[in-house]
């Protein structure tokens, strides 16, 4: 019996040992399959951790990533550029969301190597964001079906690395074929589309983004030329009086009577500014009258180019008045190009020479008030003409007469009284009338909800 009992106990021990070993082995295999560490933290070598008798519940597998499927993918030349850009376009995918990103790569051959050219989120890079290149869509498509086409404009390619090891970017070459690929990133997973798209950068000979601007400039220019031609036939044109210009003779006459000089400033800009050219045109008319009145003219200049032109203009003005001998080249001189040094120097001239008439023509900055206030303190008649809207209040406050904005450009024509020049003023007035009508009509249309008219006048490019 004892033998039998021993055998039975032995069998039970063997079965139990086998069961424990089986469970241990199963647990170990399960850990290997799930990739967990074979030796858990805290477990020493040869130490067995408690083993659960029931298997752990299986973890839920993450749902597979659904990549958006953009349609109508195609590569083209970038429109309205100088031939150094291509673009990859594709329709907005239905499945894209704020975790979707697109990356476009570029290569010199279809086989690669491809380098990342641009990357953007699904919320951006629509055609509407690039109205400089796609104005037609911007004007009209935007209100029907906006934000439906993604655009990836590419203007550079990485051609190597510089001395510091940074990627060296170079503009794309006109006429060369480039190869583009699109990769989609969704929820951290990336999928590169197998297709390779070709595009060749081409030069464009008209910027359609500026069509509205071009059209208006041509129409307005034609209107002015029409009125100039009309003035040639019928020189009796009525032009409204401009008080500031009517006072020019008065100011010069007063200076002559008082035996004091006339100070004339051409503004702070250089000759590339239209307002400086306008100021120089007025200087020509004023110098002729100064010569007629036998008065003195002082023209301190801020720009050396303006100085040389002003000298020639005044010289010709004296010659036209029949007084070339009265011209004094030293009265037109260069002071300094520095803004506040110029203001200080002109203020000094005003205080020392006490001119009886000051002309502030052209474009001014912060120094306008320093000049005009100093002039006002000397009791001079002051006439200002500027298109600098921010400085106008200062001139209006401190000067006797101020020509506002466009009147600066009209002054030369007004003072000359020449029919051809006055004809251009008439054309300018017609342009203004046209603009007023357009503004009124567009305001009514916008109020009624016809919003596309706003886009027709948007400045692009």
């Amino acid at each position, binding site marked *: 019996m004892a033998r039998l009992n021993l055998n039975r106990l032995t069998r039970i021990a063997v079965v139990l040992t086998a069961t424990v070993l089986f469970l241990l082995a199963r647990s170990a295999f399960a850990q290997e399959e799930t990739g967990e560490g074979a030796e858990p933290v805290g477990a020493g070598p040869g130490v067995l951790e408690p083993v659960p008798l029931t298997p752990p519940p299986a973890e839920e597998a993450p749902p597979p990533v659904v990549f958006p499927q953009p349609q109508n993918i195609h590569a083209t030349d970038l429109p309205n550029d*100088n*031939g150094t850009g291509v673009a990859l376009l594709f329709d907005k995918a239905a499945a894209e969301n704020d975790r979707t990103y697109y990356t476009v790569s570029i290569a010199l051959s279809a086989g690669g190597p491809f380098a990342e050219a641009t990357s953007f989120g699904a919320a951006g890079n629509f055609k509407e964001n690039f109205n400089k290149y796609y104005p037609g869509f911007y004007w009209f498509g935007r209100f029907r079906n906006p934000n439906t086409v993604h655009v990836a404009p590419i203007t550079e390619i990485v051609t190597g690395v510089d001395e510091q090891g940074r990627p060296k970017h170079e503009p794309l070459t*006109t006429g060369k074929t480039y190869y583009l690929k699109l990769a989609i990133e969704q929820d951290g997973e990336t999928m590169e589309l197998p297709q390779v798209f070709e595009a060749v950068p081409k*030069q464009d*000979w*008209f*910027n359609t983004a500026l069509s509205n601007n*071009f059209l208006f400039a041509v129409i*307005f*220019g034609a209107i*002015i*030329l029409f009125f*100039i031609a009309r003035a040639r036939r019928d020189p009796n044109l009525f032009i409204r009086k401009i008080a500031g210009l009517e006072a020019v003779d008065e100011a010069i006459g007063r200076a002559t009577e008082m035996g004091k000089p006339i100070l004339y400033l051409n503004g702070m800009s250089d000759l*590339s500014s*239209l307002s400086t*050219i306008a100021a*120089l*045109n007025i200087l*020509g*008319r004023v110098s002729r009258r100064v010569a007629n009145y036998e008065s003195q003219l002082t023209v301190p*200049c801020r*720009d*050396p180019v303006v*100085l*040389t*032109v002003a000298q*020639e*203009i005044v010289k*010709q003005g004296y*010659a*036209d008045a029949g007084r070339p001998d009265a011209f004094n080249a*030293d009265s037109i*001189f*260069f002071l*300094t190009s520095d*803004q506040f*040094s110029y*203001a*200080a120097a002109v203020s000094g001239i005003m205080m*020392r020479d006490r001119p009886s008439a000051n002309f502030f023509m052209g474009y001014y900055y*912060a*120094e306008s*008030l320093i000049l005009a*206030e100093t002039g006002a303190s000397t009791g001079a008649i002051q006439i200002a003409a500027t*298109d600098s*809207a921010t400085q106008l*209040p200062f001139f*209006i*406050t401190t000067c006797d007469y101020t020509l506002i*904005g*466009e*009147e600066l*450009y009209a002054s*030369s*024509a007004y003072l000359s009284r*020449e029919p051809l*020049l006055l004809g*251009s003023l008439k054309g300018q007035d017609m*342009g*203004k009338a046209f603009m007023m009508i357009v503004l009124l009509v567009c305001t009514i249309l916008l109020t009624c909800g016809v919003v596309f008219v706003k886009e027709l006048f948007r400045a692009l490019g």
Partner: protein
Amino acid sequence: MQFFRRRFPILLAFLAGIAMFFAQYVPAKPAQALYSGFIDWTIIIAGFAGIFGIISLTHYHMTKVRRRVPGYGFSVTTLTGFTVMLVIGLFFGIAQPNVKTAGDWMFLNLMIPMQATMFATLAFFIASAAFRAFRARTAEASALLVAGLIVILGRVPIGHYIPKLTDLAAWIMANPSMSAYRGIFLGVALAGIAMSVRIIFGVERTYMGGGD
């Protein structure tokens, strides 16, 4: 000779004007190269014209000093400052990264403080101009005074303690003021085109110094 004195400059102005007009609308490289070429020319011309500026400056002040005209001391100061800066700049160099030069020191410690002083006087000129502008003699001046006070108070810290004042100041700037600005800008743009047409087509020639 008459052609080169009268017609040739007008022809040049016409061709340059037309070329620059179309360059604005043509993005292709030849047009842009032409445009940037013209810009380069203006930079070169301005560089050479700088010499005329220096000649004019020294001649003007030397004449004043020679004739001992009243206030010629200012001319002496100008010529001294000009000569010192020129000599130091020529022989000791101008500012370079991490290198301090005498010219740099003079610019930072003389030129900039003097510029700042002139700019600072603007505050006093603004006060006197505002006093003149805000005298409520007419209905328009009264409206200007009221609007000016609202905008001034609305833009300083104390204005934030007055209910709705900052909003009212912002409304004045964004609506009546902006409308006036835009009216001026539109007029300037149209007048600019008109004057460009006059110059390009040779109707306006005063700027050439050649008369009519």
